[in-house]
């Protein structure tokens, strides 16, 4: 506080707000176009700027909340926690970093996994929490991801993962590195079972997460303008000692170079993936929310009619009982 501020009586003094931390109030500033936006409106559009479509980061829980049907939902392995196997300490203790991250995010770890449904189609969805130590992958993230894969296998359901991570977690050293192999191996099982894995890469998806689970989607999707790559741009710049091309390692760059199938706007993600999964799973196009009157006209879905409360909820069991078993041409019975 300078001398001038001190002169001002406290009741007319305005609190100095740091430039970046506007979001507390009613207004928010877009990181993309600097437009001042109505906070509630930005939230409604899932943190995508209505003016320039810049995608701000979204927490794991809000991500899953906006992606999945309201019901059913069941979090997978919410209670497993890191144990600091190396008693790691740099400038701070790993334990303290974990505690601080837990406090700041309200999450126990950097990955949230849920059993749920997408427009009535059962699936397992996972989302990285970037605010939790940069979404870094350590033992717990790896284990939760694998339990998600196991749940998908058990249910005969697809898996969707929203990545947002700086890479492996250095504080767990080789244990972290091994999570790359662990998650990739588990996805191999899903592949053998012919269950789809959709990988959605959001800003940023780097290092060990990019070089394992995130790039192994049957379909690789990214949000617009997300930073995606193996090595960080600064490391590359230092290595090659030249300026990197405009748009390097951004979603559009990756699409051009054949690493992605699609770039999808967050606001259209739910629709796009619901349709995509329905095609891959040989199901009719999902109708959502289920409207009682329209249901019999388009699709014979008796279960949906008995439950008008916007929940078609095809019991997981009907799908689970018939995972496409070895025969790629098998068409599950939903299509009449």
């Amino acid at each position, binding site marked *: 506080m300078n001398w001038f501020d001190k002169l001002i009586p406290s009741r007319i003094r305005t609190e100095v707000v740091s430039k970046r931390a506007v979001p507390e109030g009613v207004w928010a500033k877009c990181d993309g176009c600097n437009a001042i936006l109505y906070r509630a409106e930005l939230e409604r559009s899932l943190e995508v700027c209505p003016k320039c479509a810049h995608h701000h980061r979204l927490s794991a829980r809000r991500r899953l909340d906006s992606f999945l049907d309201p019901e059913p939902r069941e979090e997978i392995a919410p209670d*497993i926690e890191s144990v600091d196997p190396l008693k790691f300490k740099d400038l701070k203790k790993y334990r303290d970093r974990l505690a601080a991250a837990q406090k700041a995010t309200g999450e126990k770890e950097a990955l949230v996994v849920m059993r749920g449904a997408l427009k009535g189609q059962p699936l397992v969805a996972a989302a990285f929490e970037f605010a939790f130590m940069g979404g870094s992958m350590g033992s717990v993230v790896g284990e939760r991801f694998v339990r998600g894969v196991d749940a998908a296998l058990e249910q005969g359901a697809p898996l969707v993962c929203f990545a947002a991570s700086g890479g492996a977690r250095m504080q767990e050293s080789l244990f972290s590195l091994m999570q790359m192999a662990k998650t990739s191996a*588990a996805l*191999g099982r899903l592949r*053998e079972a012919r269950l789809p894995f959709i990988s959605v890469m959001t800003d940023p998806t780097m290092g060990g997460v990019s070089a394992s689970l995130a790039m192994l989607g049957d379909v690789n999707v990214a949000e617009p303008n997300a930073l995606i790559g193996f090595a960080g741009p600064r490391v590359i710049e230092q290595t090659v000692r030249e300026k990197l091309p405009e748009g390097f390692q951004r979603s559009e760059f990756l699409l051009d170079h054949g690493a992605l199938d699609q770039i999808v706007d967050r606001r259209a993600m739910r629709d796009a993936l619901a349709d995509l999964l329905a095609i891959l799973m040989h199901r009719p196009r999902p109708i959502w929310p289920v409207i009682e009157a329209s249901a019999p006209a388009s699709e014979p879905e008796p279960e949906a009619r008995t439950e008008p409360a916007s929940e078609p909820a095809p019991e997981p069991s009907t799908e689970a009982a018939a995972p496409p078993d070895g025969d790629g041409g098998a068409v599950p019975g939903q299509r009449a």
Partner: protein
Amino acid sequence: MDPHFLDFEQPIAELEAKLDELRRVGDDNALNIGDEIERLRKKCMTLTESIFSSLTPWQISQLSRHPRRPYLLDYVERLFEDFQELHGDRAFADDRAIVGGVARLDGRSVMVIGHQKGRDTKEKIQRNFGMPRPEGYRKALRLMEMAERFRLPILTFIDTPGAYPGVGAEERGQSEAIARNLQVMAALRTPIVCTVVGEGGSGGALAIGVGDRVLMLQYGTYSVISPEGCASILWKSADKAQLAAEAMAITSEKLLEQELIDAIVPEPLGGAHRNLDTMAATLKAALLEHLDDLAAIDMDDLRARRYRRLMGCGRFKE
């Protein structure tokens, strides 16, 4: 200072130089200085033993990338017969940072794949300092799938600072290439023995490092990031690499303790570079032992065990 010796090796280097001098004198001189030579030789050995009995993780990290450290091709000529190198990823290029090929180990057919660093400046550049690009990993993948087809056990040799961080590597999908290898290796229907012979640098190492057995030479290192890289991120200064090397537990001893590797292959006194033939013989014996073990396991069982092994990597509480 001899640049071919690390700072903590200097006292040994000096003694050895003296020893050499004496030997030369002894050759063209009638004087009997055999006793003196013997005394110096013993002293040299004791000194080496004492230096090497208390190496710090940082010193081991330096040893793992010692300029005279044996590289893959040094082992290939000593371990195998009839090695035939196979080149190229069939799509883009032949990455010389990864060498692969078929060979015989004690008569049995095997597939050999490993990182290769260069010895002189020209070769270093040609080998890109042992840092593969996506085409290197894709060549490795092609050869591994071929090995599965022809039921050749796969032996991989890990020695890299990491996958190359370059513009072209990113454009051609470095991440995807590494990820694909991890997934495929986890399920290959052939035995895989991986050995960290030098520097096990992160994803670039792991991309040929998923197997039924993971061995490490005594003074090899294996870590998620280089000590320098870790220090510059977490300590905000690359000078703190010694602390990072300590904290990350990158040595064979620590990794065996944590059950992340299966066995340590002991190195001759003073490190692998001091006696390459002994090193190669020890390594060959270790590889044969593990291959014999694996050959006795039914293939479905082998794959299931490899999967379980991977799933068991990680520490957490519920």
